[in-house]
């Protein structure tokens, strides 16, 4: 617990992005980039301070309005939340720098990017800090609308359709979640996690079980878990590249985080091995189906988007590997799942950044036309390759650490079938990553122009990809924070 | 603390009306009709909120739920119709 004099970054993590988002809105269309970058730099500092405080002083709560749960709303930060806040800041800052260069090169769809991105980041932080089920609902909606606004911002037919599909999916998901919350409030008279957890444990009523099912279904839909992934590829693949990066790297992690938190904490007395196996099965389906579809894509960004569908699958392998098994296996599984969330955030942001760079370079989104990239924008291609290393789960990368931990948990708990899925998934990932890389090596066809890519775009993506690698080499730190 | 009214025939009728208007709003192929039925549904919801001793929600439901949402939906239906008229005229 910090002393009262000590600076508490927790509320500022929410206030700050809200403030700069509002200011960016007031500034007007296309304005606010510098404000956003400054805000995000400050946010990174805040997240680091908070992580340090949590590491030193343990989890803590902040009673909004001074009332305290259950009457008021509590914010809560523990290791997992602190990690997610860090992930948000670490990914959002380079993407903002990237976006500044990107929207200078192609202004379409960038008019209201900055305020929308600000609200998105605020929603993420608010969600990661929330300890109140209804407050979580509001943050989910805030996040969903910001994401939809960003998706539709490209303004063409495909983008608007993708945005609508995304909106309906996300509303359906939060609707199911809200009904679950209503049932829990009805059963136990509170929406505060701290109050509800012991109440559910003491009397796991059928309402709570149904609430679990509704929350799981809603979050699976929002996380685009197979077979609810239908909305994701058009949205992530069709949006402007910085938007794709934010959506794929961060937004889907929010609903996954929520599910993980409730699964491990609130619903722990209710979850069953068969439910966990079902989630794992869907995860396995996501890995195989998403990878297979990524392989047959002809558009670069669609390939990357389907890769997200596949990578989400690994997140959901956490549930069967952490439910009903030995404590060591469960710990490894949770560590692996969180590591996967973090490394996918970095790698997928980098990969979308690189894809955007390549598209700017060759002027179109077509894998077959990438010839000559290797010679002309080597840094961007290198970024794509490094991000690919993480997604394939090759060492030394965060993706590898994640896979190592998950495989460890699978072998430890004797669930060899997930081992097969993960190994095959890794090979399929290699297949689709190299499908892009190999197109880049042959020389450009005569007549193909290769445009310059702004340096800010190349280096910010590269920094993210390197982050994914460093996470593999220095994963012990984040895992120590997770243990808090 | 406000006590709720007693349960009665009125509530059953209201429930049936709510379910019926919702069903019709969702099943009607004619979207103008569907929208009007949805507004009716909203107003019936306001009654239900009144029965549940929630006067704030009554106001909000009437002004926002039925009112604003209904107006937005009607506006959209207007667009659809104008669009179709334009298309028909182009086709002529």
């Amino acid at each position, binding site marked *: 617990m910090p002393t009262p004099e000590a600076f508490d970054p927790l509320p500022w993590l929410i206030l700050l992005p809200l403030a700069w988002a509002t200011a960016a809105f007031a500034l007007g269309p296309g304005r606010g980039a510098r404000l956003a970058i400054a805000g995000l730099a400050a946010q990174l500092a805040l997240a680091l301070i908070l992580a340090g405080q949590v590491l030193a002083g343990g989890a803590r709560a902040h009673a909004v309005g001074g009332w305290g749960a259950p009457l008021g709303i509590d914010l809560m930060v523990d290791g997992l939340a602190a990690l997610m806040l860090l992930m948000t800041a670490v990914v959002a800052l380079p993407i903002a720098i990237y976006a500044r260069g990107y929207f200078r090169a192609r202004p379409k769809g960038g008019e209201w990017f900055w305020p929308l991105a600000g609200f998105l980041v605020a929603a993420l932080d608010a969600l990661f800090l929330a300890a109140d089920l209804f407050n979580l609902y509001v943050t989910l909606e805030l996040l969903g609308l910001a994401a939809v606004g960003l998706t539709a911002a490209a303004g063409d037919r495909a983008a*608007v359709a993708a945005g609508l599909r995304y909106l309906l999916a996300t509303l359906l998901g939060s609707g199911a979640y809200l009904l679950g919350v209503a049932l829990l409030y009805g059963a136990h008279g509170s929406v505060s996690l701290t109050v509800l957890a012991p109440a559910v444990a003491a009397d796991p009523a059928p309402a709570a079980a149904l609430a679990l099912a509704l929350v799981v279904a809603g979050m699976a839909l929002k996380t685009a878990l197979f077979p609810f992934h239908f909305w994701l590829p058009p949205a992530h693949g069709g949006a402007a590249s910085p938007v794709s990066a934010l959506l794929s790297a961060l937004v889907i992690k929010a609903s996954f985080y929520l599910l993980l938190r409730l699964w491990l904490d609130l619903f722990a007395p209710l979850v069953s091995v068969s439910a966990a196996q079902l989630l794992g099965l869907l995860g396995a389906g996501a890995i195989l189906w998403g990878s297979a579809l990524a392989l047959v894509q002809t558009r670069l960004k669609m390939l990357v988007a389907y890769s997200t569908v596949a990578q989400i699958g690994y997140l959901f392998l956490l549930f069967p590997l952490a439910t009903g098994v030995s404590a060591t296996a469960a710990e490894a599984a949770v560590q692996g799942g969180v590591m996967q969330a973090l490394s996918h955030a970095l790698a997928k942001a980098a990969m979308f950044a690189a894809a955007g760079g390549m598209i700017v370079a060759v002027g179109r989104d077509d894998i077959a036309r990438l010839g000559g990239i290797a010679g002309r924008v080597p840094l961007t291609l290198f970024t794509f390759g490094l991000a690919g290393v993480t997604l394939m789960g090759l060492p030394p990368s965060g993706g590898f650490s994640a896979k190592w931990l998950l495989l460890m948990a699978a072998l430890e708990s004797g669930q060899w079938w997930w081992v097969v899925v993960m190994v095959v998934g890794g090979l399929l990932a290699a297949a689709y990553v190299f499908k892009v890389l190999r197109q880049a090596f042959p020389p450009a066809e005569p007549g193909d122009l290769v445009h310059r890519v702004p340096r800010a775009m190349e280096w910010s993506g590269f920094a993210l990809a390197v982050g994914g690698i460093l996470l593999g080499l220095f994963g012990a730190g984040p895992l120590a924070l997770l243990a808090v | 603390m406000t006590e*709720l009214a007693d349960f009665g025939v009125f509530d059953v009728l209201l429930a049936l009306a709510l379910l019926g208007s919702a069903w019709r709003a969702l099943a009607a192929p004619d979207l103008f009709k569907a929208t009007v039925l949805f507004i009716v549904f909203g107003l019936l919801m306001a009654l239900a909120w009144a029965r549940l001793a929630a006067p704030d929600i009554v106001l909000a439901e009437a002004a926002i739920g039925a009112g604003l949402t209904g107006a937005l939906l009607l506006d959209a239906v207007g667009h659809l119709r104008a669009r179709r008229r334009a298309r028909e005229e182009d086709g002529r």
Partner: protein
Amino acid sequence: MSLGLFYALLGGGLFALGLAGLILRPHLLAKIIGFNVMGSGAFLVLVGLGSRDGVADPVPQAMVLTGIVVAVAATALALALARRLLELSGDMVLPGERLRPGEDDDADA
């Protein structure tokens, strides 16, 4: 059965009804109506269960006020996008879905 519980049960039914409409109807306006019905159902469950012992509970009422505003915000955005789609594609249907015969027609036309 208390009044609160009765309306909560009704809310459950409305939620299921709205859900079916949201999934099954291809027309976007119908989907949006479905979403609103679904939301109303969830709100009824929240307030109804909250007052199932006969005492009105201001907390879920305030939550529902918040929920209604959120729902209208989402509806407005959805409708704006749907109208934009109409402008761009001539239809208010997501790609891949087809209207049934008679839908999006005036019954009297």
